[in-house]
């Protein structure tokens, strides 16, 4: 009887064979590659206010996500970021409509407005809506939206737990807490739903504030219990084991850390402070960063951790990371040659044109949708 049960539960042998054949072409792209690509996109977006280019960047991000998104719960965050982007644009434009700036020449709608008394800062509410400031607001909103969408794309393409594998050993334990916390949130949401449903079983009708109050205690109790269970399990499994490190190494770690902080502080002062030479500022900052690197590497030696199947870094990963960087560079260069194309004038309002060079940048940005490998198929829920 046991054998029949096992046979029923497990997928058929044939499936395992086909999964093995796919091992080579389906794999996780290095999460750092996805994030470099996305940061490149975000950097490119920040150099322009051309709405056509910004919409182009959003479309590029959406195309890549659509083609390479794994079927995992965390990958669904992209729609959330898209919604957030829409909200940002709408909010930015609405603010412009409410707090009208009395500039511009092209009148769109003439609305009555009031100017608040001076003890309320003398803000002007409502009034005639002009085209030029509205366009300006729209473009700026779009820029922020494009940056958000780029971040959203990375967070739905790169698995958080695989990103954790690339975190330096010294701060690995902080990384674990962050990743565990992210998996706790959806769990908490389903707890709330379950407990609210169970209130019905007691004959409760209230769904307002009192209802929320009643669910807080059981939900918190549940979360607390789960945290303790998880902490005990992790402790039992060797989380936080450390190696003994020689006193010299310990002192060296501490020394480099202090040096890093001091150098970085002075360097930042040199960079941002007024009236001082700007040559040594960046130099000291770089030296500080180098010290921080050494310190983190040294501190990591205390950790005994090894990594199981670390993320591979192959040609497609390099290509994806480079595509992001290339897009940012192309947009920057395009700005040098065609400043008005990258930041189209809103006063007077003009129909924006697309600089050819930037269009090339968009083409580079969409490359990962074709050169990166498909994510493994089994990543999703099989309820």
């Amino acid at each position, binding site marked *: 009887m046991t054998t029949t*049960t096992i046979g029923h539960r497990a997928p058929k042998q044939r499936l395992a064979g086909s999964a093995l054949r796919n091992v080579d072409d389906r794999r996780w792209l290095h999460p750092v590659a996805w994030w470099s690509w996305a940061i490149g996109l975000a950097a490119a977006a920040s150099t322009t206010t051309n709405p056509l280019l910004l919409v182009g960047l959003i479309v590029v991000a959406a195309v890549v996500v659509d083609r390479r998104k794994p079927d995992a719960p965390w990958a669904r965050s992209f729609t959330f970021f898209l919604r957030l982007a829409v909200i940002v644009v709408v909010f930015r434009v609405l603010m412009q409509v409410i707090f009208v700036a009395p500039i511009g020449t092209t009148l769109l709608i003439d609305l009555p407005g009031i100017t608040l008394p001076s003890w309320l800062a003398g803000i002007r509410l409502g009034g005639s809506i002009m085209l030029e400031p509205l366009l300006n607001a729209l473009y700026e909103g779009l820029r922020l939206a494009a940056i958000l969408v780029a971040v959203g794309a990375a967070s739905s393409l790169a698995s958080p737990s695989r990103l954790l594998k690339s975190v330096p050993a010294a701060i690995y334990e902080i990384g674990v807490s962050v990743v565990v916390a992210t998996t706790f949130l959806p769990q908490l949401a389903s707890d709330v739903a379950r407990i609210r449903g169970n209130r019905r*079983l007691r004959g409760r*009708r209230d769904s307002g504030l009192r209802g929320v109050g009643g669910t807080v205690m059981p939900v918190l109790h549940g979360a607390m219990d789960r945290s303790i269970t*998880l902490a005990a399990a992790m*402790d039992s499994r060797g989380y936080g084991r450390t190696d003994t490190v020689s006193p010299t190494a310990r002192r060296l770690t501490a020394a480099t850390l202090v040096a890093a902080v001091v150098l970085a502080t002075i360097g930042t002062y040199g960079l941002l402070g007024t009236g001082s030479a700007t040559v040594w500022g960046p130099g000291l900052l770089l030296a500080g960063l180098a010290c921080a690197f050494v310190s983190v590497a040294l501190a990591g030696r205390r950790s005994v951790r090894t990594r*199981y199947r670390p993320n591979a870094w192959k040609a497609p990963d390099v290509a994806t990371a480079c595509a992001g960087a290339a897009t940012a560079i192309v947009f920057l260069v395009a700005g040098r040659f065609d400043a008005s194309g990258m930041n189209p004038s809103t006063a007077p309002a003009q129909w924006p044109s697309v600089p050819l060079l930037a269009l090339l940048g968009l083409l580079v940005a969409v490359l990962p949708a074709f050169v990166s490998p498909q994510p493994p198929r089994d990543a999703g829920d099989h309820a």
Partner: protein
Amino acid sequence: MIEFDDVSIRYTYDASPIIAGLTLTITEGEFVLVLGPTGSGKSTLLGAINGLVPHFTGGVVNGDIRVDGRSTSNNRPRDLADVVGVVPQDPLASFVTDTVEEELAYTMECLGIAPTVMRRRVEETLDLLGLEELRHRPLRSLSGGQRQRVAIGAVLTAHPRVLVLDEPTSALDPGAAEEVLAALHRLVHDLGVTVVLAEHRLERVIQYADRVIALGAPGTPTTIGDPATIMTTAAIAPPVVHLGRVAGWDPTPVTVRDARRQASTLRHLLLGHVPPVRPVPDSDEVAHLRDVSVRYGSTTALRSVSLSLRAGEVVALMGRNGAGKSTLLHSLVGRSPVSGGTIDVSGTDPATLDGPALVHRVGLVPQEPGDLLETSTVAEECAASDRDAGCDAGTTRALLALLAPEITDSTHPRDLSEGQRLLLALCIVLASRPTVICLDEPTRGLDYATKDRLAGIVTDLADAGHAIVLATHDVELAAVLSSRVVIVADGEVVADGPTSEVITSSPMFAPQVAKVLAPQTWLSVEQVRRALDTQPPHKDSA
């Protein structure tokens, strides 16, 4: 391998010790079963083996505990992770990563094992526990038995010498439990791993044990010995042992196989007796489901299920984890997204009801009874329940005094034991005297004493005319309690009939007594005892 030398454990300095003066040695490759009623210190004893007690939980440990020569007093749980593997009660709550393969590697990563060795051991463990097909699967998508096997594999990859398991099968259906225990049995016999396991459902595990540690209530002595010896006198025993005592067998049988060898005389004695079963009542139908289908997103949880319930009957819903038992109960209280069919509880669709109108018709004690409780004392909880159900003040408290007299007013509901919490939730549901009472997995984590008490309460409720539906994995409970058994598989009802017919014919769901006395259809020790008491044995041929 594990040595306890005059160990006493207490959680505060002034408390009486949970474990007092325990001396014991567990040798390599032994399968040790820890048993005892709730609160006897089973979890404390298990936690002491890898140092979670006292390093993680706090508390005072006197005496010396050594594992593989290392004392737990100066080795923290993480330092012992390479020797002791702990498989916790709820695997899902203790998984750190999100896929099977990563979870298997996690312990090794923490221990700093070389990548090539890790790769090899993960492959070996996948094969050893039959997890190969699941390697890329997200842990959340696994069934209960699969999760438990992954949890075992996840500690096994570190090649521990000792495995500690706390109630590994309590949430599993009989098939999945067998799957897990078979895997453990193999580890003990093939790899010489020492296993220490605590479990309430002795009928599932005792045949695998080499030795039993029987913990009594605090203050009573601990007995240690081989299963057969302990079982001759132990108060906590599986049905087959009780049957042996009723029949006067010597030595006391521990397994169904032992018992069957001695059972021929008993079977002969019982010839001509008809097992006294709880009759399927001929009363009015109080609730029914007709062709009900339920879908959650893209998954179908129930496919056109029909079921009718009569006043005064106890129906046991059985089937694998995820077969649709809970969904069925939830549709009876109008909480499932029903996509087709009709549900009727005393003339109304429960989904259209709420408030007192609902709870007077149907009540459900959920799988986590604690979910119903939301105040900070038992008294407040009872008062809130009276208000919710719209009944006289004091109704719930009076019920509680009847069912669980030992619970005091000022206790925090979280401080109650699992069984007490269940009884409190049951009282809240009963306060409104619902026609239909649903219990979801009521015996998970309950000891035999509490289970007997629950069985008594449920029988009384049925006699008083309530219709009772309980979803359970506990075949022994279903055998004792129910008049009808409904087996659900893959969202469909595959069997529906009187208990004696449905479960005795199934190798998976048959209770121990039925297995021993087959082909006769006896279900419980109580039936046999009554039959033997009432009439002198028949001598006629049959």
